[in-house]
């Protein structure tokens, strides 16, 4: 339970204590979580409905969602939520009984209602976690608008009057707050009451088509089946999960320490050897399972963009169809969360810049409706996400002109295609002639790239004039583990993230040169790359002072290559990234710590920081 005694301070408001249920933080938390799930499902179904207004399955699903929320809100005395859900439900009831045709206007209203309820959930959560008194969201005549939908906009709702109808008695949130606060220490929360609410809400969904249709339509039956399977999961606090993953990592190390213990190796009997390898198998399995517990399918993220595409394209008068593929691809939930904003940015860019108006497309001999595709898949241990559109492509000349204006490239230089397109990731770069409220401020793509670098991923862009633009995002499967090269310098060992390593080499003596007697350079495949001595940077006594006796690791950071000089390569290892704590968070060149195979801590290098510091940044 996330609520603790800190929230005692919420009280102090006069207690009407109308409903003891509303005052139980646990119930409230359940309500918020469950409502959010319903709201997400509702949005999804609404977008389906938008494509196919006659989809009765979707109408039923939306109806059920609102109905359940209404039931629970009623129990918790959240009148505003209940009333709105009730009105939406009424509209949907007419729709599912074929008394009302679903129009885009209706879908818009229901989407707005959904947003409204989402705001409510955020407010309630604020109350629950920080004791913030909820501010009832502005409903802006939403209830009235919904009422007016009934009977094809007849005056039914007119009598209700103007203004925000879901008027929450202003005292209510205060009450709820006070109650929540007052009952924090209450023993034995009335568990099962929310379930009761749910059950009471259930009869309405008795006539749910899933069961009825199941008999006739095997496909729906299967859908119902998956729904049931999906319900068989539990919610776990992420902190607990992280701790478990940490401990499993330790277990794997401990196991490997035992297994490779020299004392044990001397008199290793077959039985012991068998048992040890059995242990290894089990720990490997446990580790895999623990890791997979943090993985979630990327589909949820993709679906969030569908609403965006719909709203944007409508606003811009464009026809855009969103195509999703590989939604089942799983990746670390932390990455999914961090990826949300960059993805939104890119989709926004695609719709706003990439896609042409229907007329323009017609003239270019393309179908009026454009496609924006989101595709995810695995590729050699990485997740690759593709965001592409079949619009006009990046304006090569315009970018070049802008870049020259901004002195990003020399006036006479003839950069390659990919170099030109890479310019769009430059901070403050935008070629949009007019700034719309969605894009054109030039704060998009550089933020996207930064975010991706933070996630240890990379982004590339491919574009063909008149045919469209594709952004390729390459991301690691998880943030918790990286593949690294363990290298030695003196008696210290460091982990170089594999994603930053291009190649390794022992240079010839004549490949090393010095500029101004200070900056050393190494000639690698015809390119002069700066040489960074790791021992100098970290003040460690090295075993070799001469570059041609040492090992050079050709690394890449922000598109620039450099050589890192170390004593030797020790091996390749998958390591769990650990924070060094607050006091050592900002050490240039160090990304974190990792427990190596022998239980010692090795520092994980941050090539960006190493190279950046070299340039005096």
């Amino acid at each position: 339970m996330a609520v603790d005694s800190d929230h005692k301070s919420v009280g102090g408001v006069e207690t009407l204590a109308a409903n003891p249920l509303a005052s139980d933080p646990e119930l409230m938390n359940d309500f918020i979580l469950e409502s959010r799930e319903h709201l997400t499902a509702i949005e999804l179904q609404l977008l389906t409905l938008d494509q196919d207004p006659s989809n009765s399955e979707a109408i039923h699903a939306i109806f059920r969602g609102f109905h359940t929320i209404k039931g629970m809100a009623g129990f918790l005395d959240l009148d505003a939520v209940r009333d709105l859900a009730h009105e939406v439900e009424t509209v949907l009831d007419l729709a599912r009984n074929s008394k009302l045709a679903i129009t885009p206007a209706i879908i818009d209203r229901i989407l707005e209602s959904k947003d409204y309820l989402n705001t409510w959930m955020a407010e309630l959560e604020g109350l629950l976690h920080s004791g913030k008194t909820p501010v009832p969201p502005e409903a802006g005549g939403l209830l009235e608008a919904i009422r007016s939908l009934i009977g094809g906009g007849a005056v039914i709702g007119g009598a209700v009057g103007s203004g925000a109808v879901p008027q929450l008695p202003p005292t209510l949130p205060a009450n709820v707050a006070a109650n929540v606060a007052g009952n924090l220490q209450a023993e034995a929360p009335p568990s099962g009451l929310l379930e009761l609410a749910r059950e009471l809400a259930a009869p309405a969904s008795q006539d749910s088509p899933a069961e009825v249709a199941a008999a006739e339509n095997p496909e729906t039956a299967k859908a119902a089946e998956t729904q049931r399977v999906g319900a068989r999961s539990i919610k776990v606090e992420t902190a607990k999960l992280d701790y478990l993953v940490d401990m499993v990592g330790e277990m794997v190390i401990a196991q490997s320490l035992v297994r490779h213990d020299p004392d044990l190796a001397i008199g290793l009997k077959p039985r012991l050897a068998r048992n040890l390898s059995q242990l290894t198998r089990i720990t490997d399995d446990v580790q895999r399972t623990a890791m997979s517990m943090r993985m979630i399918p990327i589909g949820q993220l993709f679906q969030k963009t569908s609403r965006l595409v719909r709203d944007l394209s409508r606003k811009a008068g464009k026809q855009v169809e969103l195509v999703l593929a590989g939604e089942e691809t799983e990746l670390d939930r932390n990455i999914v969360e961090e990826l949300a904003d960059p993805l939104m940015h890119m989709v926004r860019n695609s719709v706003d810049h990439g896609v042409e108006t229907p007329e323009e497309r017609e003239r270019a001999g393309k179908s009026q409706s454009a496609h924006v595709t989101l595709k995810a898949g695995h590729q050699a241990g990485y997740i690759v996400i593709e965001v592409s559109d079949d619009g006009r492509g990046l304006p090569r000349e315009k970018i070049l002109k802008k870049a020259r204006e901004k002195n990003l490239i020399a006036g006479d230089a003839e950069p390659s295609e990919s170099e030109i397109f890479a310019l769009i990731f430059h901070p403050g770069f935008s070629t949009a002639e007019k700034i719309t409220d969605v894009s054109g401020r030039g704060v998009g793509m550089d933020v996207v790239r930064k975010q991706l670098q933070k996630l240890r991923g990379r982004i590339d862009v491919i574009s063909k004039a008149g045919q469209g633009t594709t952004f390729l995002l390459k991301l690691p499967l998880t943030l918790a583990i990286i593949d690294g090269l363990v290298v030695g310098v003196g008696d210290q060992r460091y982990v170089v993230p594999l994603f930053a390593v291009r190649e390794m080499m022992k240079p010839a003596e004549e490949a090393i040169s010095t500029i101004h007697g200070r900056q050393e350079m190494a000639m690698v495949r015809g390119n002069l790359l700066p040489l960074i001595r790791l021992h100098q940077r970290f003040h460690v006594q090295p075993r070799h002072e001469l570059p041609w006796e040492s090992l050079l690791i050709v690394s890449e950071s922000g598109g620039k290559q450099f050589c890192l000089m170390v004593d030797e390569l020790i091996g390749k290892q998958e390591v769990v990234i650990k924070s060094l704590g607050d006091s050592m968070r900002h050490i240039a060149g160090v990304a974190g710590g990792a427990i190596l195979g022998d239980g010692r801590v090795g520092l994980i290098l941050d090539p960006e920081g190493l190279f950046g510091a070299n340039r005096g940044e």
Partner: protein
Amino acid sequence: MQAVLTAPPNASHQKADHRSGKYISFRLGSEEFAIQVLQVREIVGIQEITAVPQTPHGVKGVINLRGKVIPVVDLRLRFGLEELEYSQRTCIIVVQIGGDGGRVLVGLIVDAVSEVLNLQASDIEDAPDFGPGVALPYLLGMAKIKGKVKILLDIQAALAGGELAALSSQEIAGLGF
């Protein structure tokens, strides 16, 4: 620091009550220090320390404490004593202190851990006044046990403040824990 041995016996006992309790005493050079048991999480033998660049003076690096990476501080360096080669007797006392981001564990390297003391309020005296300009906020007090003086440390203050400079020739910044 030798001055403490000739402390005037005029210390009051007002602060003594919250200072009584169990202490773990340890040795640094010729002096005996003690910290409250409640702050100590565990004591481990000296082990391989991974050096971390750009850390404040006294921070030796990080160690692996059962899967957690924690910083270790050499108290000798922190108190301006000369560095000593680690031996079999060298210990790391893992203490828990309140940092910016909640509670953090820090390892303290000491010459040797001596014993657990049960200090009564009557055993404890206030630290002597060293005169103006010498503030030693990390001294909780002094304890006289069996004719020997132990310096009671507020370890949180010892790791945090820049006032340590008073005891050593160099300016020592807070460690930022």
